């Protein structure tokens, strides 16, 4: 059960390297195996100064976050069996590129309770993660809405 008192809680900070082999793996997983996503020469040929990243590149944080992909869910005391990922959103503030060493800082920005469709209470938690690069620039802000559905009884 999520305690509504977690609103505002800091979830810590960790480093996320943006490396070429993970970008190649992501491109292949996305079924878009275009070398522009991972090869400097191909990127230059397409008119990019450095290798561009896909819009969901911040998923790479899951490799480095304490506790992995489920780390935030466990940190907020969610019942993982009742937890859904409702929404994710990104603001892109500065370019992210291969070789960047990002620092991710996460906190709980909002907790809301709603009546579940079949009774009980469901809890919506918004987690905001700020990504800053090695030059101290805020490059991306990601928000995730996690939904803990109402319990069976």
């Amino acid at each position, binding site marked *: 059960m999520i305690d509504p008192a977690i609103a505002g809680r800091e979830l810590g900070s960790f480093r996320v390297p943006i490396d070429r082999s993970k970008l190649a793996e992501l491109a292949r*997983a996305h079924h878009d195996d275009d070398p522009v996503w991972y090869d400097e020469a191909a990127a230059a040929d397409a008119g990019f100064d450095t290798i561009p990243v896909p819009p969901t590149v911040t998923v790479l944080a899951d490799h480095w976050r304490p506790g*992995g992909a489920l780390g935030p869910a466990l940190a907020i005391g969610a019942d993982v069996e009742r937890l859904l990922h409702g929404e994710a959103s990104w603001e892109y503030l500065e370019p992210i590129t291969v070789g960047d060493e990002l620092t991710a800082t996460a906190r709980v920005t909002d907790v809301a309770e709603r009546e579940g469709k079949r009774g009980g209470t469901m809890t919506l938690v918004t987690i905001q993660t700020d990504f800053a690069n090695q030059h101290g620039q805020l490059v991306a802000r990601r928000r995730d809405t996690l939904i803990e559905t109402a319990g069976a009884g």
Partner: protein
Amino acid sequence: MTAPATTRLPAAPTTLEVGDRMASDEVGPLTRTDFVRYAGAGGDLNPIHHDEEFARDAGLPSVFGMGMLHAGMLGTRLARWVGPRNIEELTVRFTGQVWPGDVLSFHGEVEEIADSVATIALRVTNQRDETVLRARANARVRL
């Protein structure tokens, strides 16, 4: 491995008008290997997405795909349309699950353009025409 690289990934903002549509693209039928490949790439090792016994014990018919997998597929297709460096915002809402065997289609349409920024509505559908993800994006465009 499929590559929808029929168009070059644009570096500069592209010219778009209200009503313009993203090039249609399909991925699938998806396999468990697709989920495992994404687990390794993206780092989501929740067993519900790769461990059949675990998924069945949880009452599911099989493993199912991570939402960020089809969100990521949509993201790269959006990037191929408007250019990866021109996307200012992206919001995805997960509205359904993706199963092995599903064939996904990716759709996008420009709804509005103001101050050189296009607002784009996007959707991922499956072979039953169910919407598994809805998204909105803002992207800088060339007028």
